[in-house]
């Protein structure tokens, strides 16, 4: 990055330069430009985050004052709590199901949309709808589909005689409950995965497919030998965004399944621990844990999947 300002300052002969201009001084303009951003980000993002990172190691509880240093005590206590352990397992399932499903669906949908056709932009417009809607309302919308008394899913399955009668989907089986809740989130995050993968597919040169065809590759061979390897950067980023969303899942299980342990996520536990148990230190510890896990797992995905591709 060259300094545009300094390189052009000498080349303005048409304007009478002020005496101040000629003296060497620190160029203040960029500081003024970033000042509002700096005030907001430092005051409302970095300072609060630092609070969290520090107080995660303290006992901050309304029921047990005063605030005192605990070291890793909060983390230990959390690991001893059955609800948190269950939520940890649930969240692992959310992440695995969510990342896998949104990535597979993302690849499939991107392949469908890869070649131009009439009306493609309209299909893409419809595709991004779920991404654009508020998560809380999506939970509400899907509860009408899963409803045990008169939901769409029950209605269809019963009419087609797949199930004998109306059944309860959310609750009885942990895996099914988690899968169905996660499906709502997958519905929300898949559009972005599709866009990211599609963007990479668009820049794969056609010659490569030609070459693969000449080598005797069929449709599947082309996908396996050309498309998937070259789309890796897009797939990696899609997986990272899915990971961040699924690790932080809150709205969907909260709206669809309440506080039940069957589907409770780590984020929900953070909320309960802070606002119900009034144990803010433990709440901070849990959010810090989620933050660190997000960063480490993102790095892991990038290292495994991301490959810079040069054409």
């Amino acid at each position, binding site marked *: 990055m060259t300094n545009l300002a300094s390189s052009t300052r000498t080349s303005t002969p048409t304007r009478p330069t002020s005496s101040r201009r000629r003296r060497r001084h620190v160029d203040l303009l960029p500081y003024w430009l970033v000042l509002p951003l700096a005030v907001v980000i430092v005051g409302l993002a970095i300072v609060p985050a630092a609070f969290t990172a520090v107080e995660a190691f303290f006992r901050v509880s309304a029921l047990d004052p005063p605030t005192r240093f605990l070291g890793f005590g909060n983390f230990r206590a959390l690991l001893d709590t059955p*609800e948190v352990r269950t939520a940890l397992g649930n969240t692992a399932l959310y992440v695995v199901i969510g990342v896998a499903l949104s990535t597979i669906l993302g690849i499939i949908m991107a392949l469908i949309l890869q070649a131009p056709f009439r009306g493609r932009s309209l299909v893409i417009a419809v595709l991004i709808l779920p991404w654009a809607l508020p998560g809380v309302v999506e939970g509400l919308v899907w509860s009408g589909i899963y409803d045990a008394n008169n939901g769409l899913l029950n209605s269809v399955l019963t009419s087609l005689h797949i199930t004998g009668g109306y059944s309860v989907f959310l609750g009885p089986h942990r895996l099914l409950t988690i899968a169905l809740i996660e499906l709502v989130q997958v519905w929300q995050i898949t559009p972005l995965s599709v866009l990211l993968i599609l963007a990479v597919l668009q820049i794969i040169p056609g010659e490569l497919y030609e070459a693969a065809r000449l080598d005797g590759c069929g449709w599947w061979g082309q996908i396996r030998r050309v498309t998937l390897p070259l789309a890796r950067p897009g797939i990696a980023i899609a997986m990272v965004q899915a990971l961040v969303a699924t690790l932080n899942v809150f709205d969907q299980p909260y709206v669809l399944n309440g506080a*039940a342990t069957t589907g409770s996520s780590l984020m929900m536990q953070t909320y309960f621990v802070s606002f119900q148990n009034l144990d803010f230190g433990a709440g901070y510890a849990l959010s810090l844990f989620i933050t660190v896990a997000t960063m480490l797992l993102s790095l892991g995905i990038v290292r495994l999947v991301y490959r810079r591709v040069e054409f």
Partner: protein
Amino acid sequence: MTRPVRRIAAVGTALLLTVAVLVGCARVTPSNQTKGVTITVALAGPPPGKAALANFTRQTGVKVRWVQLDWDSLQTKISAAATSKTFFADATDVDWSRVGEFNVTGWFYPMNNYVDTKSFAHDMPQLSSFVVGKKVIGIPYDTSFLVTTVNKKLFKKAGISTTPTTIAEYTADLRKVKASGVAHPLNIPFSAAEGLSTYWYEVTNAFGGQVLNKDYQPQFTTPDSPGYQAMKWMVDALKQGLVPPGNIDVTDGEGEQTLMAKGLVASTFGDYSGTVGTLYDDPSASSVPKQVTYIRTPGVKAPAGNVNNPDGIGIPRTAKYPKAAAEFIKWFIAPENQANFAGLHGPSQAISGFAFPARLTALKKLDENGKLPQGKQVIDLLTKGSHPAFPGAQPPWYSQFSNSVYTNIHSAAVGQESVDQAVGAIAETVKRLRGEA
């Protein structure tokens, strides 16, 4: 500096100054002023009629700004405001279940500093739920208890003519109702929420016991204990098809009462008092008007009492005008006003959906004027053994205890664990919480 830069500089400086000024704003110190101040009252229900509030302002010079929130977010706000030591309301909800917690945290002014509670304790049956030692954390502003509601019409259709008085009779009657065509006659809100815990206390009470003793020791671990039997009865009712399978996602209040109001179920064992008048008999909201009635809650050998579930009001420590708030609370709990809120003088002064007055005198007055649906039964239920869910004051860790209760009963209902495992897990939690406290 060029002109745009100067402009940005001005804006930036202004921004910094604003932040500085705002940070400099000290926290409000409470004031004892009453005349001419506006207090904020935050409760989980609608305000009294405009005419009633105007009366109060005329009498005291205190204006009221009413904030209505749903119960759950209100509880969150109370905690958040108290822990960040900031003003949120001058008078707000003190739920009976959180009294122990508030006693430990000291988030509320003791009400006995402001009001002579001894003078009207005899007229306020549910005050005891708010007393810890010598402190009164809040004052009940309505009377609310759990009560069994029955759809008479559906019971009659099944050929049941006598009111069940024991749990065994009640269960047999439900089976008859099921056989007569109501697919799932019993209403239990199995969603993992506070209402499921409360329901269990009510059933435990009917089985003749309580879930914790005075020292907060679990009383529900052995198969012959009332708490264990109550849980088993609830879970079995679901497994045997007496409860709609979809109820494992149904919450108390809205969810379960809708089923009752639509006539899809025939009875709610632990319903909320007041629902007959405010909901089931309201033709605009219910398809079963004049069909639902309160009955004495069936017990082991004879009808049992009920568990209190009152709403209280108190003054948080972060209040701006505690004295004015106390004036309001005095007015709010006065017998004549309580009768007004329940509709003694028509809707202009009433509170819509108001359960029952907190004062016996007000209840009797309503009944005399024919304004209390099934008034005799209600007063009867209230005076014959309606009592707090816990023998001592509520434990300070009640919220965590209740969370363990409702998540484990829910798990037992969906078949993820047995009743044995559920009571074991709850007992384990109690042990941990008692160890901490």
